[in-house]
């Protein structure tokens, strides 16, 4: 189809599809009214049963914990996928002679940015860890905290210390962190099996609701997820970063 024909066909079809959608959506209960029993039941019982004050976390990591396990592995698969898809460039880099590493430094970083970036690193990492650790109590959790931690690594890059980061060759370590996070989730699930109950069933003491060490396995799973997400996102970002740096080099030399 030519672009204009495609656009016209789409607009006609979308008008029909849109009308159908609206027709169906108008069958929903009005906005602001929630009728279903699922959420109300959980809101009523979760704190008592799970000693987790954040019911969303209780749902995510316990009642519907299998979904979240699948979700972690979606991220895991995507990280592997990106690594596979972008691998050719990596070969190229290794073919290129290993010139002085200083060239790889991100260009145009002023000292002020560098200092600021490094100064921010501490608080960002702390905040990330806090968010991971308090997931079962207040908003946040492994996923959000993990992303915050990953942006911490980005700060390191911004402050021009990417070379330092690269020189310690963190990839194997990151891979290990990511996969142990992912495996950790399954392992926590298997704890239940080992104790003779079902997969992902809580086998740890629930503790006092509202305190850091409560809610049984939820903080443990949160930790695994946090590890996986942080390492996963750093890997994702660095896959793209690495390429940018590599190919920018010839440009800089001219």
């Amino acid at each position, binding site marked *: *189809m030519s*672009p204009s024909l*495609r656009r016209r*066909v*789409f607009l*006609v*079809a979308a008008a*029909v*599809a849109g009308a*159908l*959608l609206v*027709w*169906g*959506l*108008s*069958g*929903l*209960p009005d906005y602001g009214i929630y009728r*279903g*029993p*699922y*959420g*109300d*039941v*959980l809101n009523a019982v979760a704190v008592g049963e799970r000693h987790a004050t954040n019911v969303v976390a209780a749902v995510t990591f*316990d*009642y*519907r914990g*299998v*979904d979240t396990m*699948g*979700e972690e*592995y*979606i991220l*895991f*698969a*995507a990280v*592997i*996928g990106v690594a*596979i*898809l972008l*691998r050719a460039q990596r070969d190229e880099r290794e073919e290129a002679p290993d010139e002085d590493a200083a060239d790889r430094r991100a260009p145009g970083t002023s000292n002020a940015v560098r200092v600021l970036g490094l100064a921010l690193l501490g608080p960002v990492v702390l905040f990330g860890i806090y968010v991971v650790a308090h997931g079962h109590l207040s908003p946040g959790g492994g996923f959000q905290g993990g992303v915050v931690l990953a942006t911490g690594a980005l700060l390191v890059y911004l402050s021009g210390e990417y070379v330092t980061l690269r020189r310690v060759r963190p990839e*194997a370590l990151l*891979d290990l962190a*990511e*996969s*142990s996070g*992912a*495996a950790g989730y*399954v392992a926590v*699930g*298997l704890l*239940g*099996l080992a104790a003779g*109950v*079902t*997969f*992902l*069933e*809580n086998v740890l003491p629930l503790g006092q609701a509202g305190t850091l060490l409560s809610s049984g396995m939820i903080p443990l799973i949160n930790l695994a997820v946090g590890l996986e997400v942080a390492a996963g996102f750093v890997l994702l970002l660095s896959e793209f970063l690495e390429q940018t740096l590599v190919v920018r080099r010839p440009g800089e030399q001219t």
Partner: protein
Amino acid sequence: MGALPALPVAVPLLVAAALVGLAPVIRHRLADAVAVATAATVAGLCAALLLQAAGGPVVYWFGGWTPRQGIALGVAFAIDPVGAGLATLAGVLATAALVFSWRHFEAVGTLYHSLMLVFLAGIVGFCLSGDLFNMFVFYELLSVSAYALAGYRTEDPGSLQGALNFAITNSVGAFLVLAGIALLYGRSGALNLAQLGQALASGPADRLVVVAFLLLLVGFFVKAAVVPFHFWLADAYAMAPTPVGMLFAGVVSELGLYALARVYWTVFSGPLAADAGGLRAVLLGAGVVTALVGGVMCVLQHHLTRLLAYATVSHVGLTLTGLALLGPAGLGGAVLYAVADGLIKGSLFASVGIVQYHLGSVDELALRGRGRHLPWTATLVVLGALGLAGVPPFGTFLGKALMEEAAGAAGHAWLTALFVVVAALTAAALLRAAGRVFLGLGGPPARAVDAPPGPAYPTMLAPAALLLAGALAIGLVPGLAGRVELAAARFTDRPAYAAAVLQGASGPGGADAESHPPGYPAGPAGWATLAAVLGLALGLWPLLRRRPSGPRRATARLWAPVGAALRSLHNGHIGDSVTWLVVGMAAFGTLLALVVR
């Protein structure tokens, strides 16, 4: 019952993570062995579940959150023979594919193995789950792994393009599914299939139910590649690496139809019961069109994997017609057919992979006569073609015979003609290609290109041969037809399913299937043979003629514009695929809105 239901998902995921984490210390061959062993373990676990489920549904509540007063708090796997059977098929195919990849290509560290195992876990979870959102999660898990696997051969631009189209079109499909889930949740406040079915059964089939069904139907049809949602398929399947193609064509397309059947019979069969007649017509129409378009496109291809990809589309259409009869007999036939067909497709993809590895091409014209030193591969391809045509005693024949019987009982005896035509078309395309490549018919042999000579490796031949043997075995197991019909009857029994999931009742459940007479029904066997002969004639005719004769030229003139139009429609453009998706959604939506009530 123990821990069995959780393991076929947990084990491959755990191993996948371990393979990546320990990559620096794992040798390549060890990763191969571990991956094969894991896939085989999954196949074994699923087979054990299949046996267990044959005695009654197996329900497993994760985290021990059993339902209270009919309200599901957690996520359940609700395992029946149909789902467990498909999961077993996936495990077998994955094992074969991993054995095949032993020699096939240089894998990147352990990443490839890991991704295959995650992919497998996604498929298995999808088949076993009894929770709508959980199904969506596993659907995404298998899809995300599939996108990456489809683009694995990054050196090939076609592969990347196929993967992009695949990923974008299927993601839109997934969002449609999610929107459908949201609508259902807004109405009923439930995500568990059984609970959803109970909540909707009391109400009428109003606009929300219709649109939710539409969204789910379209989303799953995108995965199944039903016309007009199939435009992404050929590029993705044909360009994927062979072992991945084996899994794609063998089981992934069928999953879309499985999901539709599952959702229809657990959730929608209550409110839509009164409109089953109209719904049947719509689904039958979709199946017939898909089967024919796929069959014609298949004949038009010279690229072997692309040819197989369209054969997949065509046979998904056939399976859909069986399902569209909306009865246990048709469903049983469709399931049997899909499983046997999946095994044969996996075998054929492997055979074509051998051709590609040894001859360096998959273009049947460029390969003319060059496959003479691959007699075993040739035998497998010809047998596979006969299997696709549904010749007894392949399992495909048994499945087709059941579907034909059900169609006759439902007053759609003309479906037999469709089965003959489609079987003849796909078999013809394949036999023509086999004649060219392995016998050198229809012209002088092509020039050889640089490729490893010698006989095919056993690690490549064996999976192809064993998969084919599996398809044969399905046709030969005594009493299988009756058992499958019993399983299908249970699959379609919504109240029994709900009772088993929500109350834990596991009675015999379902109506008794009428016992099947042993031996092959004569009528269907005759039709199947006719299809095979027709296919052979159609396929070899163009090859044996030196010069196009008068009538042939006339038909060629007649067909050329049709073929050209079909080809130009299948251009692999992303915008086009998405446009057709919306067109299809509008069309199906209008039909459903007219049909229901």
